[in-house]
């Protein structure tokens, strides 16, 4: 089900951009008026962490170009941060903004699931334009 954005459209250029994006691709960034804050929790510079970061970066570049910020948190250096975001699995991506918070486990190799998880694409109904 394609729910309409609840809040009023605030910034018109961004809206315009999003309309262009919708025309261009089936993936529609919703609430395009906000800056996306993403956190990637990893433990050390493992292969898995690096893969996760690369995958995340790629997805964001594709769908959120210029409107996202990724913070990488190494839990080995900052273990106290794990509790706040209820980190259990590693790597984990947490979408801090826009609300609500979304959580995705894994090295993000399955891009489709990441898009669903980040609420970049509707989960159930396939987009009719695709």
């Amino acid at each position, binding site marked *: 089900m394609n729910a309409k954005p609840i809040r009023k459209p605030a910034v018109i250029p961004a809206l315009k951009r999003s309309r262009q994006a919708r025309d261009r691709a089936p993936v529609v960034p919703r609430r395009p008026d906000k800056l996306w804050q993403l956190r990637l929790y990893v433990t050390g510079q493992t292969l*898995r962490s690096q893969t*996760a970061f690369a995958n995340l970066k790629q997805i964001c570049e594709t769908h959120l170009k210029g409107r996202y910020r990724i913070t990488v948190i190494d839990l080995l250096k900052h273990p106290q941060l*794990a509790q706040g975001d209820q980190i*259990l699995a590693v*790597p984990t991506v947490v979408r801090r903004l826009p609300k609500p918070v979304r959580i995705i486990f*894994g*090295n993000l*190799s399955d891009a489709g699931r990441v898009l669903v998880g980040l609420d970049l694409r509707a989960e159930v109904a396939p987009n009719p334009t695709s």
Partner: protein
Amino acid sequence: MTLKNHLSVPATPGPRLPKCPTGIQGLDEITGGGLPLGRPTLVCGGAGCGKTLLAAEFLVRGATQFGEPGVLMAFEETEAELKANVASLGFDLAGLVRRKQIVIDYVHIERSEVQESGEYDLEGLFVRLNYAIDSIRAKRVVLDTLEALFAGLPNEAILRSELRRLFRWLKEKGVTAVITAERGREQLTRHGLEEYVSDCVILLDHRVNDQIATRHLRVVKYRGALHGTNEFPFLIGDNGISVLPITSLGLNHKISSERIATGIPRLDAMLGGRGFFRGSSILLTGTPGTGKTIVSANFAQAACKRGERVLFFSFEESPNQIVRNMHSIGLRLEPLVKRNRLRFHSARPSLYGLEMHLATMFKEIVAFQPHVVIVDPITSLMDAGTDSESKGMVTRLIDYLKAGQVTSLFTSLTQGGHALQQSEMAMSSLMDSWLLLQDFEGNGERNRVLYVLKARGMAHSNQIREFLISDRGIDLVDAYIGPSGVLTGSARVAQGDLEKAAVLASQQEAAQLKREVERKRTALERKISGLRSEYETEALELRRIAEQVGTRTFVLGTERAASGRLRQADAKVAGGARGKSRIGRKNP
């Protein structure tokens, strides 16, 4: 598998496995000192059987009693919920958290809120746990309930391999861990956690027998150590969990040779003249209405008079009722209650399970520190459990009381018929002394009699005594034993009257004889005095006559002389005197 191999190598470096005391009443006794130190222990059980409380108490006692800080990683309840829940057991979890003796980390995972994409591991959990342990140098860790992860994480294969790694990691970390898990249908835990935790497995159980719910604890497995394998009842009370037995398993309590009076002098006399041993256990059996409570109350009063404290557990009557009823036989208990010498504890036997009763009793005993404990009656308490349970319970209670040199008196209600044989044979073997109160029926009446069936370690009477209850208290009298058997009650009185009548008859006969003799003596005396007065009268008469004669002679003489002078005749004194004497002789 790796765990098991890992374990078998360093298992026996010393003679004994180092243990980590839990501080939970009774659990350390069963496990011989506590949980395996530095190893994980699995606590499994169904819903509502106290897994979380056991784990929480392990942490709280560790922090407060043994100076070992702990980490509680909760997967089901939030920190606030946990604090509130254990506060009902009197544990100040919030304060311990404030003082940095306990860290609570609530792990929240909700399957619907997460997506997974690609491979991952649970390193985040390790990091959190490690951080929590290091932040307070924790020695104890509780994971409650790890199985929530099975519901929260989509990929079970990853979870299983990570759990295996987690337990190995906990061991390497050297913390003593308690992991709780739900009871499974065919295995110990729903998700087979026992596969990973193989050092110590404790099974909790909550089941209903005859409408009475009882919690049980069993140490299923304790690698490398002896442990009690039985199912032990346990309960959750105001100050945490207590597993029963609390008492020692051996029979090695100190004993006393001091004797204490029973409050009934004749009963003391039957027990070698000095009453029961202090610290002994006494069983008082009897059919309904034979005066068990009265004997108990007497015993209590005697102890209070000696300045001792008495704790009276009543399972049939309320304290006020006992006080009132004892008043009717002249026993005033309320001043003793007021002076805090005597304390009553009344409860309905069906109020809760047997072990709860036992724990309540233990608690009362610890609080009041009595010298004498009375349980009236123990049989109605036994209805609260099965036979073996209740026997075990009485054994524990007696053990506990004996260890503290507390004299215990248990009354036991036996059904009608042959009270003696029907009495709890199993229970009587635990008792040092056994008194039997019995109804004696005959001549259309019932009378109470008392025997001493057994009294270990003292000479005691083999006689039957009649047991009398009056408004002045109780008394024991000898039953009449004659050619027609044992006579009690009015038959005994009648026999006594017969004997009294015979004595009276002979007394009366003697008295009559005495009266007869007395009467004869007075008659004799009367006769003697009569004769004497007759004699005295005659003697008096004689004297009077003699005086009369003298006077007349004199008068005659003077008259003659006067007339002679008139006739001038010569004096014929002699002739006049003669005539006078003639008159005198005629006169009397």
